[in-house]
């Protein structure tokens, strides 16, 4: 296996609020390899966006990375601020959730893309203009030349998300983080953006981290999935084995709650209860109060196990894996 591009090691991000200290991210470890597409799924508030914001160094006060490390090609980003600033935006780029508010309203899109080129590639003037036009064409903006001077509000939401993607790709990153890139968009536009991401990945050999709560999107785009619940990754697996045989009861619940087009059940199942209050998490497994399989053991923290090849799991009582899954439970 090739060396990972991005690695998170036991990352903890906390927020200090009136109701106490909140751990939004509680010890997340993951790795993203070149060319791979990793999906991170979970309900809102599960810490998936905060994790990615920590990678980009944009967690704002009162939040802070309290523990753990983030490294790029084996070098810590947290230890070397200056070097990290060069890597962010050049090697790792991020597309944010809300395209409507993600662009500076007062600068033309040409300027906003151009400043990435100037900062990371030293390209300015006519060369930058040519490259910007090329990027806008790449993301499917028709007739980009005259529109370089347009301001963000002159574009529709879908167009803005395309511009955001063009801006993220400007410095030719190896990893693109896309945080709910389609949620704010119309359904038809969503499909276009997804197609664009697939096309770009195949064409540019990008690695992508896709943060979403949309399992359909994950199925379409991703190689591997990490499921987050209450600040922890509870299960990681490659996308087809996870969809075929979810091991964590939460993953199983999520899948049952998602309609499949070809096999629409009469009634969608839901996960009982509501996401826990992050300032007052249950001890042990945070899902246990909503979990149909929970028992007394779940009140203590579950160990990390590897019930199958390429699968990581945090659960005392996983769903049984059907296909020759020898639970070689390796305690870590």
């Amino acid at each position, binding site marked *: 296996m090739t060396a990972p591009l991005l690695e998170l090691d036991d990352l903890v991000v906390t927020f200090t609020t009136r109701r106490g200290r909140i751990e939004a991210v509680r010890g997340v470890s993951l790795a993203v390899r070149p060319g791979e597409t990793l999906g991170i799924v979970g309900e809102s508030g599960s810490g998936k966006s905060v994790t990615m914001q920590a990678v980009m160094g944009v967690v704002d006060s009162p939040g802070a990375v309290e523990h753990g490390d983030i490294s790029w090609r084996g070098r810590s980003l947290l230890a070397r601020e200056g070097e990290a600033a060069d890597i962010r935006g050049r090697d790792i780029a991020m597309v944010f959730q809300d395209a409507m508010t993600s662009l500076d309203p007062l600068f033309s899109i040409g300027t906003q893309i151009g400043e990435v080129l100037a*900062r990371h590639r030293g390209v300015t003037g006519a060369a930058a203009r040519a490259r910007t036009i090329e990027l806008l064409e790449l993301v499917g903006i028709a007739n980009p030349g005259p529109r370089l001077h347009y301001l963000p509000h002159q574009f529709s939401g879908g167009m803005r998300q395309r511009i955001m993607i063009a801006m993220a790709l400007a410095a030719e990153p190896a990893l693109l983080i896309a945080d709910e890139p389609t949620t704010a968009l119309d359904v038809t536009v969503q499909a276009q953006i997804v197609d664009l991401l697939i096309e770009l990945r195949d064409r540019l050999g990008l690695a992508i981290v896709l943060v979403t709560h949309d399992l359909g999107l994950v199925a379409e785009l991703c190689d591997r999935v990490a499921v987050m619940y209450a600040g922890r990754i509870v299960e990681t697996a490659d996308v087809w084995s996870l969809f075929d045989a979810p091991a964590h009861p939460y993953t199983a619940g999520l899948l049952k709650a998602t309609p499949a087009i070809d096999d629409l059940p009469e009634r969608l199942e839901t996960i009982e209860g509501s996401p826990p209050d992050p300032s007052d998490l249950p001890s042990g497994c945070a899902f246990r109060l909503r979990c149909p399989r929970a028992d007394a053991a779940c009140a203590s923290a579950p160990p990390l196990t590897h019930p199958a090849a390429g699968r990581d799991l945090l659960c005392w009582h996983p769903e049984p894996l059907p296909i020759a899954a020898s639970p070689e439970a390796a305690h870590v």
Partner: protein
Amino acid sequence: MDRVANLILRRLLHGVIVVLGVMTIVFFVTRIIGDPVQVMLPVEATEAERALLRNQLGLDRPILEQFLQFAGNTLTFNFGDSLWQRRPAMDIVLQRLPMTALLTAAGIGAAILLSIPLGIVAALRPDGIVDRTTVVASLAGLSMPQFWLGLLLIILFGVKLGWLPTSGARSPAHIILPAITLALPSLARLAMVVRTAMIDEMNRQYIKVVRAKGLKRARVIGVHALRNASVPILTLSGWEIIGALAGNVVVVESIFAWPGLGLTVMQSIERQDLILLQAVVFTVAVMAVCINILIDIAHRAIDPRVNA
């Protein structure tokens, strides 16, 4: 360009209405509610003297005719002779105006130039040492009456230390104390607004995006956040300049005997010279209108989304 010209024209028209409105208020207050003759002549003046002045000022004619005459005079910048100096009031105003312009430029200019870096540094670390100091000092500055501040500066630098001149305008050093007095309350307000606006902008989503692009901190703050924050800063700056011209210089100039329009206001009030006072009010109203137009144009340059 057409649009800008159109905008300026419309704003100028609006400005003329504002100036005429201000002057109409002045007209009716002086001619109808008050009696200019009674104000301008000493109590012991004879009935003949009163009649003479009434005739000179045209007060014996019908009120509508008086008003039209007054409006016409206003539009031609002609207010008649000052009673105090016996020469055209507008001449006196134009002669005093540069001193006020100088004082305002020095005081409010300094306030604007200092408030921006101060507010930015404070905003970058909310509750840091610079921020706390700025907030406390601004609150103190906001709370001190300007005239009291000026007098305290005179006591400290003029009387106790003897470092700076406190009265008149005979040397460049004479401007220091009045300019500081004029500047401090404005500086306090501006610094607070810069700070608040910058904190607001730094919390916006697009700043997160710009930071994630790996841009240098100086560019994130000085280009993206500052440009977005500059609309309220600009608005308040304009307001501070107008506020200085339309009031604060009266206080400051009368404390430091700075020979500008503000001192002229107090002198014409002392001498009951309504004609001169009208000319000053008119001039200040015109300047306020012009500054508002300039601010509007600058606003549009900063935020191209605002269209005419």
